[in-house]
């Protein structure tokens, strides 16, 4: 028996629920030596902004217990070079191409999206990175306020008919409220979570370990937080959720799906085991066959809770 691993993220059909997370998979090329990218459900590319960005001053990364901190600072080649030099590479793989975009303002978000819309290259969906801290609207992160998240999503909805996935930050009091706002504004799905604000200090030098003092925590350490956020969002909205945070095995995928995620993204684990996402797909297939699970999608949101 061949288990069916297909899942749907709203209008976006994926051959399996294993995607790779923005900023942890380069533009795909870096991983091609290690496995055939067509195995993946989808690739989410590094965040693209309108202009190229050099990123933050080093040191940009620090290792912590079961996690890492980063303050890369959205280093990227800019939308034009992305279309010219990076996106063509991914076209040859039969996997969903999801382009992650960001902007300092709603206008920049729209400008990036318009450039991508004009391209003839295949793009299957957009993921909106709502976690960058510098925005015109009072310097607040896009997904820190439901009003702002709603306004930006509505503005972007007008630019494209392709699936829009709003990527949410966990660094808010009420993530479900933000999810509700973007769903109302027309987002097709949400992905959760981006990194958690964190910090590391060197007791000998009494200095921070990151050049920008604070950064984003990712890796196995954040999986419990991510599961809780997916669960909170699941209770609040009907649109599909993509779970992100510390996924490194097929068991992790199953846990996220049971809690309510329709798919997951593998992030930090790609750095440690470059063919990790491919292994997870194979392990999922094997598990489903052994367990007689015909349709993996049936698992979504099956968490048993005794009240």
């Amino acid at each position, binding site marked *: 028996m061949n288990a069916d691993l297909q899942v749907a993220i709203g209008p976006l059909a994926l051959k399996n629920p294993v995607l790779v997370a923005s900023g942890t998979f380069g533009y795909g090329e*870096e991983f091609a030596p290690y496995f055939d990218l067509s195995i993946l459900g989808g690739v989410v590319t590094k965040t693209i902004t309108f202009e190229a960005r050099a990123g933050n001053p080093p*040191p940009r990364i620090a290792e912590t*217990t079961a996690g890492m901190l980063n303050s890369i600072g959205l280093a990227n080649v800019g939308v034009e070079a992305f279309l010219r030099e990076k996106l063509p590479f991914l076209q040859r793989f039969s996997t969903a191409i999801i382009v992650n975009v960001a902007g300092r303002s709603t206008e920049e978000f729209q400008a990036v999206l318009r450039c991508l819309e004009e391209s003839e290259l295949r793009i299957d969906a957009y993921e909106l990175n709502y976690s960058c801290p510098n925005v015109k609207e009072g310097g607040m992160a896009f997904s820190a306020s439901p009003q702002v998240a709603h306004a930006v999503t509505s503005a972007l909805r007008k630019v494209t008919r392709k699936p829009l996935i709003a990527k949410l930050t966990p660094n808010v009091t009420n993530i479900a409220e933000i999810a509700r706002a973007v769903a109302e504004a027309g987002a097709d799905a949400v992905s959760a979570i981006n990194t958690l604000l964190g910090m590391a200090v060197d007791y000998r030098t009494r200095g921070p370990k990151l050049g920008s003092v604070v950064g984003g925590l990712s890796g196995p350490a954040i999986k419990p937080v991510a599961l809780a956020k997916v669960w909170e969002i699941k209770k609040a909205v009907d649109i599909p959720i993509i779970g992100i945070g510390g996924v490194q095995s097929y068991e992790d995928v199953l846990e996220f799906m049971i809690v309510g995620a329709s798919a997951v993204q593998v992030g930090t684990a790609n750095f*440690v085991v470059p063919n990790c996402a491919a292994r997870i797909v194979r392990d999922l297939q094997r598990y489903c066959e052994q367990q007689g699970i015909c349709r993996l999608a049936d698992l979504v949101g099956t968490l048993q809770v005794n009240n």
Partner: protein
Amino acid sequence: MPALHACPVTRNEQVSQTVFRLTLHAPDLALAAAPGQFVNIRIQEAPVPLWRRPLSVYSVDRDAGSIRLLFEVRGLGTRILAASRPGTTVDALGPLGSTFSAPPPETLPILVAGGLGIAPLHFWAEELVRAGRRPLLLFGARTAEALCPLDDLRRLAWDLRLATEDGTEGVHGMVTELLATALAERAPQQTMVYACGPVPMLREVVRICAAHGVDGQICLETLMACGFGACMGCAVPARGCSPQPSYKLVCKEGPVFTFAEVDLER
């Protein structure tokens, strides 16, 4: 092409109080690796330590199908690696990174190593000797015990000059003083410098070479989360005329850079 390799440990020798020399059976790596390149080692199948640990290729034996690494115990990762015994297997990703480029014919390659910076330069010296060149190796450390492994270094057909900061072996002083002396002995176009060691040492190497009009390459170290260009964590400031900062990735564009590529002053 880099790949994942499961490498059996064939030997692990302690060569000083804190330094180990690890021999791995790795025929593909032995064939593919070039001087300056590194392998990224997964310490254990557990989330701590999370990242792989980059180590330079110290030596290859293509006939025996083995590679050697030379490392110092600094923290958890290298401590666990130091305890690995023959029969166990090491998960190595590689070969990764850029390589030293050949010195022009008729020039003297001068290799300047500070401490564990000897690791990539030892491999480079071996290759130069195999190619019929006779490099000058300048090697410095804090104290005699840290000048290791001298058994390998004394065996081969190159010129070796030593320096220690406490004077317990070789010249009393810094390895960069040996460099200044060596450069003063020759016309600038007759030498090519290759250096690896702590950043303050590299800064001094670049300064001395600039003063003598000598060109060369340096091998850098940074923290690395991936080692193959995916995380953008290993950035170092690039040298350029633009006022905007720009960066180079040590794992992918390096670890070997020309003097002109990176800005060690920032």
